[in-house]
């Protein structure tokens, strides 16, 4: 291409200057080449059009790229965050398995893992913060627990939640610390908000539950919060869940109201 461009310019210059056989030959040569180029473009025309069409239908990525550039230029718009692989620290799984062992025994835990399709988790026992597993597996486990343990009663799931809190924080944490630790151990766009009433009662709100539990699964959380609040209580008083609002389709928030018992 570069060679041809130079020769075309030369041809033009020479055509305007002295006329020689050599120049004539040069004009002829560049003309032929430009004709060939034009012919090639005609033949390739459909392909080029197709390529353009494909690029525009592939759309999303290209457009987003464009938007990104525009955003950078404007310095205001921010590109949507890329969805990363969400993981859960092993300590969460091991605490849940210890809780299940205590409530339904070793065979019960194995039955739940088998139902969830997570048999490979049988040997996950050490409360490690070094190893991590996909959050999707935690959701599968939670669903299996709901289906097998949650029918007809909330008591078993609630008791499992209590034990889960004990095994996750055996020496007790303040509620605020425990929530911070949970957030660092379970990836994802989720949150727990805690508000303390003047009379000592506590309200928890889970936004985008990392277990994705609805009723009856959210009773695991109810038991968990009861135990965590009781363990962190400075006067040794117990807490009980008095109200539980499961998440709705409108908002993915479940609310737990805990009353301090006398």
């Amino acid at each position, binding site marked *: 291409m570069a060679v041809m461009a130079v020769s075309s310019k030369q041809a033009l210059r020479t055509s305007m200057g002295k006329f020689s056989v050599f120049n004539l030959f040069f004009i002829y040569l560049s003309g032929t080449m430009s004709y060939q180029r034009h012919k090639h473009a005609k033949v390739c025309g459909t392909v080029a059009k197709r390529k353009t069409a494909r690029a525009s239908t592939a759309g999303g990525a290209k457009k987003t790229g464009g938007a990104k550039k525009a955003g950078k230029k404007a310095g205001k718009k921010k590109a949507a965050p890329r969805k990363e692989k969400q993981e859960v620290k092993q300590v969460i799984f091991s605490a849940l398995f210890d809780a299940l*062992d*205590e*409530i*339904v*025994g*070793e*065979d*019960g*835990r194995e*039955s*739940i893992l088998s*139902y969830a399709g997570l048999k490979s988790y049988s040997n996950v026992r050490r409360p490690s913060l070094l190893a991590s597993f996909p959050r999707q597996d935690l959701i599968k486990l939670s669903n299996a627990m709901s*289906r*097998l*343990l949650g*029918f*007809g*009663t909330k*008591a*078993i799931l609630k*008791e499992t939640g209590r034990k889960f809190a004990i095994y996750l924080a055996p020496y007790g944490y303040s509620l605020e610390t425990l929530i911070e630790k949970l957030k660092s151990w379970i990836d994802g766009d989720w949150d727990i908000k805690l508000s303390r009433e003047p009379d000592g009662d506590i309200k928890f709100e889970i936004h985008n539950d990392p277990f994705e539990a609805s009723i009856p699964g959210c009773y695991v959380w109810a038991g968990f919060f009861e135990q965590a609040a009781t363990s962190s209580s400075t006067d040794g008083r117990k807490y009980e869940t008095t109200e539980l609002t499961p998440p709705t389709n409108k908002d993915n928030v479940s609310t737990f109201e805990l009353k301090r018992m006398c």
Partner: protein
Amino acid sequence: MIMEREPDYVYKCVVVGDYAVGKTSLISRFIQKKFLKEYKPTLGVNLILKELNITDTNGKEILVNLVLWDVAGQEKYDRVRQLYYKGCSAAMLVYDITRVETFQNLEKKWLKDFTENASKDALYMVVGNKADLEDMKKVSTEMGQELSDRITAISFIETSAKDGTNVDEAFLDLIKKLLEQAGEYV
């Protein structure tokens, strides 16, 4: 797109009785159609979900999800076992026809435990297992029937998990009684 059909009924059913009466073997025979030769004590509870299609008298198919709780018979699980009865629709009270004490414990321990912790309308049936060991039989069929009548169980049946005798019948009878209780004609 394949749509998974929602079950018409979900029942939680516990299978209880002394250790080594054959509770796990009965369930294994019913679910997997095989007999477990080696005795391996259950640790806590085995949980099994079984989907069943039952046809009613009008030919309508009823989809039932049966959540079976195969509960450990050992005494060390006595404390936590009370939790297992919560939300139960039915119980299978199993004894070993070759061991009298397992029969005596049925009323004294297992029925008492169940009625104290399960809901009042929960059903229960009496099952005498190991019917293939006729020569070693210590609990007669009459004794089993008499107990079943006295405790107002829904039915009494003798089974053998080893050769499969009456195993399917026992479970299906329990489900039919549960469906009848729900107003279905099966």
